[in-house]
């Protein structure tokens, strides 16, 4: 299993180099935050997960600007914040009313691996606080298909990928890491805090990747600006990327928990 590594060594130097520009543009000067970011990058690289990520929002630095950057690529898919957010050292908290962040990322922007016409991908959201209401949406969009992640949707599902939805929702202990991934058309899964992995009740169909941007902290309903279903769960990390396996997810959760622990903000 991954572990926080001591400072030093070639791998850590590589991680430090990746992080260096992020620290400069995001204004990260705190030594603890810098070390946590470097360790995060190192662990993701070391376990083969870095290359599966398209956008990664570590929510470190406590300001709107610092929280807007995509650590994986500082010039693409940075967040644009709308409405009521509270930014602090513990993360970015949407107000559950009109808050969302536009990821400037849509499924058909990215060279996802395809299974038929379906782009195989993952979404994750590390919730630092409980969502109110439970049916609020951590992230996602509805274009021609539902693609979202939520603690428990109004229909009792936990998330949706192209062609399928997952059930049941988790109704307690809503803080921590949430992930939805679709390694193949037939095998999407939802996972929360690594030990709770649910299989889909349905997964079928062939629908083109979404052509509208994913929102973070809410739901982009056909670019209409309505039905945001903004959450109140503080975002302490989020990622969008290629599909992860169940084994990947277990490692990912450990890395993310180590990251939050290094920042002293485990929920």
């Amino acid at each position, binding site marked *: 299993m991954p572990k926080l590594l001591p400072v030093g060594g070639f791998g850590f130097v590589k991680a430090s180099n990746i992080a260096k520009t992020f620290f400069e543009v995001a204004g990260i000067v705190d030594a603890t935050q810098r070390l946590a970011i470097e360790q995060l990058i190192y662990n993701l690289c070391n376990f083969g997960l870095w290359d599966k990520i398209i956008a990664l929002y570590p929510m470190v630095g406590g300001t709107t600007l610092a929280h807007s950057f995509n650590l994986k690529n500082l010039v693409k898919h940075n967040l644009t*914040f709308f409405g009521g957010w509270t930014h602090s050292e513990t993360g970015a908290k949407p107000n559950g009313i009109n808050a969302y962040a536009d990821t400037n990322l849509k499924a058909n922007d990215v060279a996802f691996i395809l299974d038929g016409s379906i782009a195989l991908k993952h979404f994750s959201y590390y919730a630092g606080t409980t969502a109110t209401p439970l049916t609020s949406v951590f992230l996602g969009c509805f274009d021609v298909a539902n693609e979202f992640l939520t603690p428990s949707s109004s229909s009792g599902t936990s998330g949706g990928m192209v062609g399928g939805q997952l059930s049941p929702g988790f109704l307690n202990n809503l803080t921590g890491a949430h992930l939805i991934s679709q390694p193949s058309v037939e095998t999407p899964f939802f996972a929360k805090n690594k030990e709770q992995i649910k299989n889909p009740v349905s997964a079928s169909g062939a629908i083109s990747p979404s052509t509208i941007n994913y929102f973070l902290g809410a739901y982009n309903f056909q670019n209409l600006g309505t*039905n945001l279903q903004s959450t109140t769960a503080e975002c302490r990390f989020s990622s969008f990327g290629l599909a992860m396996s169940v084994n990947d997810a277990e490692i990912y959760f450990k890395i993310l928990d180590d990251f939050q622990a290094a920042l002293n903000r485990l929920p």
Partner: protein
Amino acid sequence: MTKVRLLTVPQKNELVGQLFDTDSYFNPVQDINNDWIISNEETEQCVNPDFAWVAALPEIEYLPKPNPPFLPK
């Protein structure tokens, strides 16, 4: 009870697409009565002098529109 700030339609039109600080945009939305509102976070964090007037907007209780059920596809 969650409180929000009530806007007129012209005020809403003035805020759409505008920054309230260097990195955050206003996002007026409609409540259950189809009245336009912004959040207290936006009014409290607004440092854009062009929109200092939002601090004086009337405060009302927020009554959200009901969420539609998710569609399977």
